[in-house]
């Protein structure tokens, strides 16, 4: 990571922009196109947003700890719970998944980087720009307050006359661009950059789940893009998409939002399913049970996820036939998830299980997601859902699947892959405190919400009256929230303490967990060039099979040590994609366009200038990366410049950013 890369700019670059040379320090981080650094950037940024979203959660729980709470006024409460949801979904879980995907996917397929490294960097900076932009709403005192789902016409100009919902819509549009570009990038990467011998069905399950997620993003993000544009146009240009007085139908928003929104929840959970599909086999010392079923069930979830969206609309008046149809389709989607749960259990069954922290978190996922999934099945029955909807029962469900499923899975990933990224382990003792406090706190907070919901406590409401019997469990839940906080604190302490400890200890060495998949071929931490030499893949769990064989009786026997199998990271001749300023410059233009649409169109001008300058700078930036199957041209004739990726990138960027420009 500290290795500087000496890159020669070609003899006569077109234009005035030369490519940055190898950098160190903060300049390295802001110009990096290295997927590993980008992954770390996503992870660190997401954890900061996690703290913000967590604070918002604590405020909610403080307000609801007692009846007729006075911690937050109603208006502020609406903003806090809206931002909590938006933050956790779009600025925590999704970028954390992106962190793991970015860091690991090239390593798991044996590649040197992603197909479009600058586009990858752009995705991160655009995400950051969008996240900061959205949170600016707090600073101007007008955070969005329409819920994360932003139902129109409540979020239209008449009922939400401030600027909050514009921040919401524009912030999400910006972040949507990042996700879309990432999806395109990773799909091409997986299809085109696998190591020799790695057929699709020899890819690790984590890679498969990430691939499915990219397809979901690819097709779902445009739908919410449409919805958000329609909302923005209604609010700012006098359109009539959601104005019932002019004949519009509010359900249009709901359909468009949930056509995105349901695939979105699979986008949230599948990465964690992928993570634990790596952790559980490693810590059970058994291959994943039913690999083809794990892959196909992931694909099935991705596919079927498109057919269930109106189960979020059972009481919105869509009519009994639609309700029945979506009720049935929703019941079916439990099946592939059930397959996965059974496969994880079957993997553990008969295995030699070690309950290190990653395995604790992974087990947490299996158990907590099962609970959340079961409540989900109860929602699928439309008559039952008619009672459950808009109550805390729903809040319980989705926190069990998002927190208990997605977030715990991410923590499993942190503990599992920390040595790969940073060269030392996180502490086990603190890890166990982290896990148990989070698990207990989480169940304290969200378990009782099932009861509260069925007792009739409404959701999305700033306070409740005394005398309904809600007092005890709300107080209990609020205490639980602070237990969760302690658990997260343990994580933070663990990071600091283990980093300190690592300074005067030998590095962790290769393969600390006796793992199975190709990323472990590289030393820890991963060298900047990834692999010393290309790995030839002949099976799933290639890394494992190099270490272990079978004796005559079919028993597993060790045939090579980790040191023998792992590379030592000493290769120095790998050409790497060169760093670039332009992703950062391009991303920085977007908030200006956003502010322009909210305040005065003049702000759009510097935004547009930055964007177009960045696009053209990008196109003319010298490419100096001649090898690798990445489709870049190589031009050492001093004549050109660049072609393919930057122009295509710029096409994408222009196409996407043009949709940000004012229309109409």
């Amino acid at each position, binding site marked *: 990571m500290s290795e500087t890369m000496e890159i020669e700019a070609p003899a006569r670059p077109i234009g005035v922009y030369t490519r940055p040379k190898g950098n160190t320090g903060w300049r390295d981080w802001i110009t990096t196109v290295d997927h590993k650094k980008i992954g770390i950037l996503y992870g660190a940024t997401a954890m900061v947003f996690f703290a913000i979203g967590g604070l918002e959660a604590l405020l909610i729980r403080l307000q609801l700890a007692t009846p007729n709470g006075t911690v937050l006024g109603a208006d502020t409460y609406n903003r806090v719970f809206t931002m909590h949801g938006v933050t956790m979904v779009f600025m925590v879980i999704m970028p954390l998944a992106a962190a793991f995907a970015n860091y690991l996917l090239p390593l798991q397929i044996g590649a040197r980087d992603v197909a479009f490294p600058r586009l990858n960097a752009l995705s991160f900076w655009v995400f950051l720009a969008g996240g900061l932009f959205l949170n600016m709403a707090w600073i101007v005192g007008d955070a969005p307050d329409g819920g994360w789902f932003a139902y129109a016409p409540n979020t239209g100009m008449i009922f939400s006359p401030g600027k909050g919902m514009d921040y919401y819509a524009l912030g999400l549009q910006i972040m949507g661009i990042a996700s879309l570009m990432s999806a395109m990038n990773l799909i091409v990467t997986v299809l085109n950059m696998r190591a020799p011998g790695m057929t699709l069905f020899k890819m690790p399950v984590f890679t498969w789940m990430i691939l499915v997620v990219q397809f979901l993003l690819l097709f779902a993000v445009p739908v919410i893009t449409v919805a958000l544009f329609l909302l923005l146009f209604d609010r700012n240009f006098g359109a009539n998409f959601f104005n019932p007085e002019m004949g519009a139908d509010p359900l249009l928003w709901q359909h468009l939002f949930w056509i995105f929104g349901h695939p979105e929840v699979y986008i949230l959970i599948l990465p964690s399913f992928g993570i634990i599909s790596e952790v559980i086999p490693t810590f059970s010392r058994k291959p994943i049970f039913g690999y083809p079923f794990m892959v196909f069930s992931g694909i099935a979830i991705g596919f079927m996820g*498109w057919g269930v969206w109106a189960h979020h609309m059972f009481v919105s008046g869509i009519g009994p036939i639609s309700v029945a149809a979506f009720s049935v389709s929703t019941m079916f989607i439990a099946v592939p998830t059930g397959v996965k749960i059974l496969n994880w259990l079957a993997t553990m069954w008969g295995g030699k299980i070690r309950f290190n922290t990653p395995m604790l978190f992974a087990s947490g996922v299996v158990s907590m997601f099962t609970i959340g999934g079961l409540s989900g099945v109860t929602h699928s029955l439309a008559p039952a859902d008619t009672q459950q909807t808009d109550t805390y029962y729903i809040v319980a469900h989705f926190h069990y699947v998002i927190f208990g499923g997605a977030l715990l899975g991410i923590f499993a990933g942190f503990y599992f892959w920390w040595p790969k990224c940073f060269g030392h382990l996180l502490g086990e003792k603190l890890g166990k405190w982290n896990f148990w406090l989070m698990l207990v706190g989480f169940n304290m907070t969200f378990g009782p919400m099932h009861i509260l919901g069925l007792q009739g406590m409404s959701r999305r409401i700033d306070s409740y009256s005394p005398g309904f019997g809600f007092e005890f469990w709300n107080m209990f839940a609020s205490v639980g929230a602070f237990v969760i906080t302690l658990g997260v604190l343990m994580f933070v302490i663990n990071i600091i303490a283990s980093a300190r400890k690592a300074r005067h200890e030998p590095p962790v060495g290769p393969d600390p967990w006796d793992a199975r998949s190709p990323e472990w071929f590289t030393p820890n931490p991963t060298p900047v060039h990834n692999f010393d030499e290309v790995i030839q893949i002949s099976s799933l769990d290639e890394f494992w099979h190099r270490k272990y064989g079978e004796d005559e009786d079919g028993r597993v026997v060790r045939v090579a040590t980790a040191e023998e199998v792992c590379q030592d990271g000493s290769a120095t001749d790998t050409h790497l994609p060169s760093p670039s300023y332009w992703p950062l410059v391009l991303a920085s233009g977007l908030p200006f366009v956003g502010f322009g649409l909210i305040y005065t169109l003049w702000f759009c001008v510097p935004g547009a200038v930055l964007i177009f300058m960045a696009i053209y700078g990008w196109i003319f930036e010298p490419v100096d990366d001649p090898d690798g199957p990445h489709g870049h041209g190589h031009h050492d004739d001093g004549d050109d410049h660049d072609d393919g990726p930057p122009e295509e990138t710029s096409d994408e960027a222009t196409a996407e950013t043009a949709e940000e420009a004012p229309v109409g």
Partner: protein
Amino acid sequence: MTTSAEAHVESPEADHDAHDHPTDRKYVQVAIVLAIVTALEVATYFVDIPGEVLIPALMVMMVFKFFYVAAWFMHLRFDSPLFTKFFVTGLVLATAVYGVTLTVFEFWTKG
């Protein structure tokens, strides 16, 4: 529109070339077909045709043009099936999802 078509040398291998790259002549032929179909489509505006015939006819002509542009101009006919799969997946998914939405809005029955 005629310069390069005429300038392009027609050789016996032209048809084999079409396996890799259609000739300019071929492209012009495709364009003429598309123009004719467009003319037919527009002609329906001037003729009184009952809706049950008109709309399916228009859909058929539209799909025909769509297919021809995708297959020939976008080169899908000659390229890897993977490209077609991406395009078709997007089309099918959009049709399915939005088709269901339109159904929920009773578009087909109430317009």
